[in-house]
């Protein structure tokens, strides 16, 4: 029912566009509760067991997307001393985790390109779009900088660009859509990875490959493909040799698309038009609260580890 409320809202409040198309597809799917993604959409399977933390993917992303120079060279491993997040200057970051195994694991973070993206459904100006190729893209020209998507994203991905005061925009990985994906080419990070930690292909094939890897090496992998079902499925999926919460994944997101959970935010969106400044403050508070909650969680985990 919640899904329907949202759709009604989106259709009524914001005309047409990607979100409505996306959601009406889920109606076509009949009994299926969630959309489940475009049938031939592409994805990336990330095999954490292979990653050596060389950060080639970060460097390749920086070059491809024309991002600003980093604070430190991409071959500097001191960055692993802290857990970094994606930012306006880095659409992907690799973090290092000490695990219950005798060796650390590295995890590359970027937008997971959800099948049913919470950023998309929460955005009231339709800045986001899920393309049939699988990418969740973003149109900065319509973004008003309200930052709802940052609050809605279950993976804390969209970042806010403070450097452009005149046109504040949100920044995130777009699956190299404009430069590569739409021409059938893999994203820059995939091409740069020396160990094929990142496998690019049709999402449905990658799911088969992932399960085949688990079957052929049951001692190496935990029996779970993160992102196959989480939040309605994501285009980027993960294999790991340790339980996913040990490498910073949120294992409590559930399999329902996030749209159901961000309803509260939606009910306040119409107010944007009337009490603009107060609302901004509100979003800011919400974002901060989420951050401090996350920090709390992090320090608890750190305390245990």
């Amino acid at each position: 029912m919640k899904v329907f409320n949202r759709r009604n809202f989106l259709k009524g409040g914001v005309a047409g566009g990607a979100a409505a198309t996306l959601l009406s597809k889920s109606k076509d799917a009949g009994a299926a509760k969630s959309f489940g993604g475009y049938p031939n959409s592409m994805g990336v399977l990330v095999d954490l067991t292979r990653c050596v933390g060389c950060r080639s993917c970060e460097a390749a992303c920086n070059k491809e997307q024309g991002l600003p120079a980093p604070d430190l060279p991409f071959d500097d491993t001191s960055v692993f001393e802290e857990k970094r997040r994606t930012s306006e200057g880095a659409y992907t970051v690799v973090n290092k985790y000490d695990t219950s195994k005798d060796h650390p694991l590295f995890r590359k973070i970027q937008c997971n390109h959800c099948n049913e993206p919470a950023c998309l459904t929460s955005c009231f100006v339709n800045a986001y779009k899920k393309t049939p190729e699988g990418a969740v893209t973003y149109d900065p020209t319509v973004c008003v900088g309200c930052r709802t998507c940052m609050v809605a994203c279950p993976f804390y991905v969209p970042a806010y660009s403070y450097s452009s005061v005149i046109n504040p925009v949100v920044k995130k990985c777009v699956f190299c859509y404009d430069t590569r994906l739409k021409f059938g080419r893999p994203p820059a990070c995939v091409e740069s990875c020396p160990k094929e930690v990142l496998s690019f292909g049709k999402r449905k094939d990658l799911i088969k490959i992932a399960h085949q890897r688990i079957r052929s090496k049951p001692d190496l992998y935990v029996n779970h493909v993160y992102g196959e079902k989480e939040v309605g499925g994501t285009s980027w999926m993960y294999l790991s040799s340790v339980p996913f919460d040990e490498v910073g994944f949120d294992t409590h997101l559930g399999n329902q698309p996030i749209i159901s959970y961000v309803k509260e935010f939606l009910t306040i969106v119409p107010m944007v038009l009337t009490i603009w400044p107060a609302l901004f403050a509100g979003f800011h508070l919400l974002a901060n609260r989420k951050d401090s909650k996350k920090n709390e969680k992090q320090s608890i985990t750190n305390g245990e580890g």
Partner: protein
Amino acid sequence: MIQKNKYLIGVIALLALALFTVPCLAMEGPDSIELDSLAELYEPVQFDHIMHVEAAGDDCSVCHHHTTGTPVQDENCIGCHANSGEADEVACSACHPANRFQADYLNKIDENYRLNHVDKVGLKAAYHIKCMGCHEENDAPTGCQDCHTRTEAGDKMFRSGKYAPKGGNKSRKSGH
């Protein structure tokens, strides 16, 4: 009787072949190979083949799976290739594609879907997974530049060396 003799001779011949080809082939392999097909961000690798043959105890299948020299050991291959014999080409690049994730290759495996080949890694990963796996186990070097020096293009991409960020950019906010 004749049939049986023939059979026996066949077996003996095969055994002899097996015995002789192993060390022979290992020795016949190249002394050194320049791995340069992917060189762009890094210089080509001068691969000391003969040294690695020794390190692998003359067992070709440690790296070459089922394509040359010693019999197949990899569980993934054995199912179908226990008796496949040697391949026409033994170079890694003969089977591991350099265009692993380009559309033409993806379409090819889509048309001819074989469970055990569909996940065959590309050339760059074949090198790195094999080499680094072994190097880790044997405490051999695993740093990128332990095997290949970075080119100027590489320095530029990694924003290192003379392309290193100057004075730091610390004031940049995280964006969250």
